[in-house]
């Protein structure tokens, strides 16, 4: 049975906003619904319309997939845990008088820029309503935060004159986030 043009349009709308696998899965169901309405006696046009009415607008489906997407979930978790990690490092760096460490100004500036950029893309990932935008922003945030955590832990281990318990706590918190980000990144990659 040929796919009605209304269903083809619906498929195109889904495919524009979602990965092919997700769009294909929904379209399989939509074609089932279309076949059911045809069996009930509706003509091709009305069967396709009835099936689409039953499924809801493509934008609604895309929005729901975006809301429950792994990328969105990971971004929310990073957003919630971010202040805790920041607080740990803030306290540790003040305690260790980090401004006296022999770190070039350019590197300090670059670290600040990566932190600011990561926070911005994280906010985008949490707030965005488009699947692909959430996905991209979440991936960039994962990379940025992983780089920051790795650099911060390395700097603390190599550059700190003394390694107090606050620095140890901050390094542990960052290592935990690094592990979470590494595992999450694989999951986010698999969803595109």
């Amino acid at each position: 049975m040929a796919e009605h043009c209304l269903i083809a349009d619906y498929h195109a709308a889904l495919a524009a906003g979602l990965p092919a696998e997700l769009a294909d899965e929904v379209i399989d169901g939509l074609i089932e619904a279309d076949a059911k309405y045809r069996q009930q006696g509706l003509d091709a046009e009305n069967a396709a319309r009835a099936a689409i009415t039953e499924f809801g607008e493509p934008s609604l489906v895309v929005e729901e997939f975006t809301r429950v997407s792994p990328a969105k979930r990971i971004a929310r978790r990073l957003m919630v845990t971010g202040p805790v990690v920041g607080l740990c490092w803030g306290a540790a760096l003040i305690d260790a008088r980090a401004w006296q460490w022999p770190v070039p100004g350019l590197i300090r500036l670059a670290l600040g820029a990566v932190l600011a950029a990561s926070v911005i893309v994280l906010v985008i990932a949490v707030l965005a309503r488009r699947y692909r935008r959430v996905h991209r922003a979440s991936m960039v945030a994962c990379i940025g935060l992983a780089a920051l955590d790795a650099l911060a832990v390395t700097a603390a281990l190599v550059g700190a004159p003394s390694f107090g318990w606050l620095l140890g706590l901050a390094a542990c918190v960052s290592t935990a986030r690094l592990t979470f980000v590494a595992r999450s990144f694989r999951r986010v990659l698999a969803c595109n």
Partner: protein
Amino acid sequence: MHAEQLKGHLDALLLAALEDGPRHGYAVMEALRESTGGRLALPTGTIYPALHRLEAAGLIAGSWSVVTGRRRRCYTLTGAGELALSGRRAEWRDFAAVIGAALEGKPWPSTA
């Protein structure tokens, strides 16, 4: 019964629809429609994201197959899903009994 009223119950309904064996998304919706006498007013398209959420939580497992030339994703209940379903059923029975007793003006059965 609208989507708003189903909030908090949709997961249990989807798990229950998979209790009898593997089903694809549309078959899950048809099973729900049949078991509720067609009284669920839920856009079928929103079932799919909910199934993906349950899969991410490890309560169901999805796998692809090819049926009449189309790719189809079917879901089965996992062990964790079975446990979650029985837990949700027990919670629902308690909830319905307590609210039912309050609304009908009957005393809550004493266990003493």
